């Protein structure tokens, strides 16, 4: 009898707790177990084999009340460096915060709601440092960095719920709720703020300073080049070989094939390739050879036609220009490659130029050209295709050598000056990398943040 009562009491308490947790829980559906909840293991063993179990047991101890810790120093303010649709909730973590604790942020139009839940996160997430890219300057000199990753939470609100953005200038009220084991507690105060838009992103101040410095360096060296045009530029074998290639083609009486790459005019490597095309066209016009320029992009086609025509005109041979030599093939990558390979196999050009940006078809083009015995000069900033060009071409312009080509071939002071400015920027980057590596090795990490665009 005693055991029966004990069993019945245990079951009753368990059911009561289940129903209570269902009442506190907002969303969960309580599923009662199919079988009655079992008593403690020892009691079960005692019940085994008995025909009838009768027991009377005092009620088990009440489970302890759940104490939900609350955070402190909660503030709600406008999200900086945004378009006026964001608020930020910042608070110091609650004393006794555990992994099981969850924070929920709700937004309402008034101090009493109605509240719309914006988001929930466990107490182990949303530290100020990891979200803190909206807060420049604070991290740049390591102020309180340790605190930012373990003491202060930060939550960004960018909508009113249901993906409706916040409106600029309207005051919104924010409620912060802490939940632990199904028990929730609201922060005592309901705070408010109005989003405001900013006209300057302070998180990018470092980017602006570096960009202006770089631009100023380039312009300074351009101005200096105007005064003293004899700026040194190192030898680039691929560009020196351009004349040799054109001369060889002329001697053999075969055409020259020039490709501008697979990219559009928006890509700077295509512009660099067109620049070289202009110089090549001028020299081809002088030698009275044939220049074939199959294009992949129609806008590049029009620019290429103008450039070649201008090249022939500058060489004093406008009559030799044939617009049909510069033509559009197709925009499809491998169809273009197949068509160009066909041109190489039929026309057997003596010199092939592969300038610009290339994708996987680079090896197909270069290997086919190598098979025809042509001299091949490639120039690309597509780092993944460089190995293929280096293997199959006689000369390869690697990365920025392609961009330096216009300065190298023309020796124009303005262009040479910008190349010099670019080199100075590279020296600066190299020095910063070395200093930064040394500093970070010894635990001084603020220098990393100096070069990070925050936000």
């Amino acid at each position: 009898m005693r055991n029966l009562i004990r069993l019945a009491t245990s079951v009753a308490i368990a059911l009561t707790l289940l129903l209570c947790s269902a009442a506190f829980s907002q969303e969960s559906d309580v599923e009662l177990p199919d079988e009655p909840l079992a008593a403690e293991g020892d009691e079960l063993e005692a019940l085994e084999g008995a025909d009838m179990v009768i027991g009377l047991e005092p009620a088990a101890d009440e489970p302890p009340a759940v104490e939900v810790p609350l955070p402190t120093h909660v503030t709600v303010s406008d999200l900086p460096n945004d378009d006026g649709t964001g608020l930020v909730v910042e608070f110091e973590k609650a004393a006794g915060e555990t992994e099981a604790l969850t924070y929920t942020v709700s937004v309402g139009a008034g101090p009493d709601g109605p509240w719309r839940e914006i988001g929930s996160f466990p107490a182990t997430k949303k530290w100020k440092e990891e979200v803190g890219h909206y807060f420049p300057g604070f991290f740049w000199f390591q102020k309180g960095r340790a605190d930012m990753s373990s003491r202060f939470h930060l939550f960004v609100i960018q909508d009113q719920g249901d993906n409706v953005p916040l409106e600029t200038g309207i005051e919104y009220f924010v409620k912060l709720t802490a939940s632990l084991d199904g028990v929730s507690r609201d922060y005592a105060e309901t705070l408010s703020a109005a989003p405001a838009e900013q006209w300057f992103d302070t998180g990018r101040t470092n980017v602006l300073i570096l960009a202006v410095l770089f631009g100023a360096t380039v312009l300074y060296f351009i101005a200096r080049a105007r005064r003293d045009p004899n700026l040194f530029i190192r030898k680039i074998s691929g560009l020196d070989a351009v004349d040799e290639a054109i001369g060889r083609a002329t001697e053999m009486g075969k055409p020259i094939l020039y490709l501008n790459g697979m990219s559009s005019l928006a890509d700077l490597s295509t512009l660099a390739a067109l620049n070289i095309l202009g110089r090549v066209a001028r020299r081809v016009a002088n030698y009275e050879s044939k220049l074939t320029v199959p294009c992949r992009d129609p806008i590049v086609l029009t620019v290429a036609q103008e450039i070649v025509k201008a090249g022939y005109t500058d060489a004093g041979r406008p009559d030799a220009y044939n617009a049909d030599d510069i033509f559009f093939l197709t925009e499809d990558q491998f169809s273009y490659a197949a068509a160009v390979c066909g041109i190489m196999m039929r026309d057997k050009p003596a010199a092939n130029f592969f300038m610009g940006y290339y994708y996987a078809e680079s090896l197909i083009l270069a290997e086919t050209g190598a098979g025809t015995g042509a001299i091949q000069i490639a120039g690309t900033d597509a780092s993944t295709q460089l190995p293929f060009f280096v293997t199959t071409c006689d000369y390869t312009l690697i990365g920025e050598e392609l961009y330096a080509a216009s300065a190298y071939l023309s020796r124009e002071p303005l262009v040479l000056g910008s190349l010099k400015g670019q080199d100075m920027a590279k020296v600066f980057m190299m020095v910063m990398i070395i200093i930064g590596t040394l500093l970070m090795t010894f635990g001084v990490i603020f220098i990393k943040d100096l070069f990070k665009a925050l936000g």
Partner: protein
Amino acid sequence: MQFIRKQFPVMLAFVMGMMMFIREFVPAKFSEQLYYGFTDWAIVIVGFSAVFAILSLLHHHMNKVRKRAQGYGYSIITILAFIQMITLSLIFSVRPGTPGGWEYQWLFVPMQATMFATLAFFIASAAFRAFRARTWEALALLIAGLIVMIGRVPIGEFISPHLSTFADWIMNNPSMAGFRGIILGVALAQIAIAVRIIFGIERTYMGGGD
């Protein structure tokens, strides 16, 4: 007319370039609206270029057929293939189950896959012909390349687990360092060219002479 051809494009490039540069530092709504507005226009312009491409393609091939130039038979096939594909696509679309879709799946896809597949053969012949260690640096590069080539496939794991570990180390350290150097250099060069274009020093995009 001279102003439209010579000075106006340079002014436009300067204004647009500076506007988009400044926009990067202005988070306000107006700046965002400008940004998305320009991108909508850019989508329209890129779409128009497709029309231009079609006209250029047809013009080129019809010229070849008219002049009976070398290989004009291929031009006839190109024009016929172009017309039939456009017709089928406009009437039936190219979704699976349509004639256009059938052509896509059973002609276009195998042809494209075949072209890409030829790379495997070309790589083998290019590697055999050109990967010769003529200098000590070339030898180091060759050994690294061979380790990565074998270490990144299951047979490398089968031969020795250390191969794949070493191959990963090569990819994550010296190879990445090299790539980073190239990427940094290219990025700086691109900024320099952009500065030249914005300030009108570089005018290649206009075509013609300087």
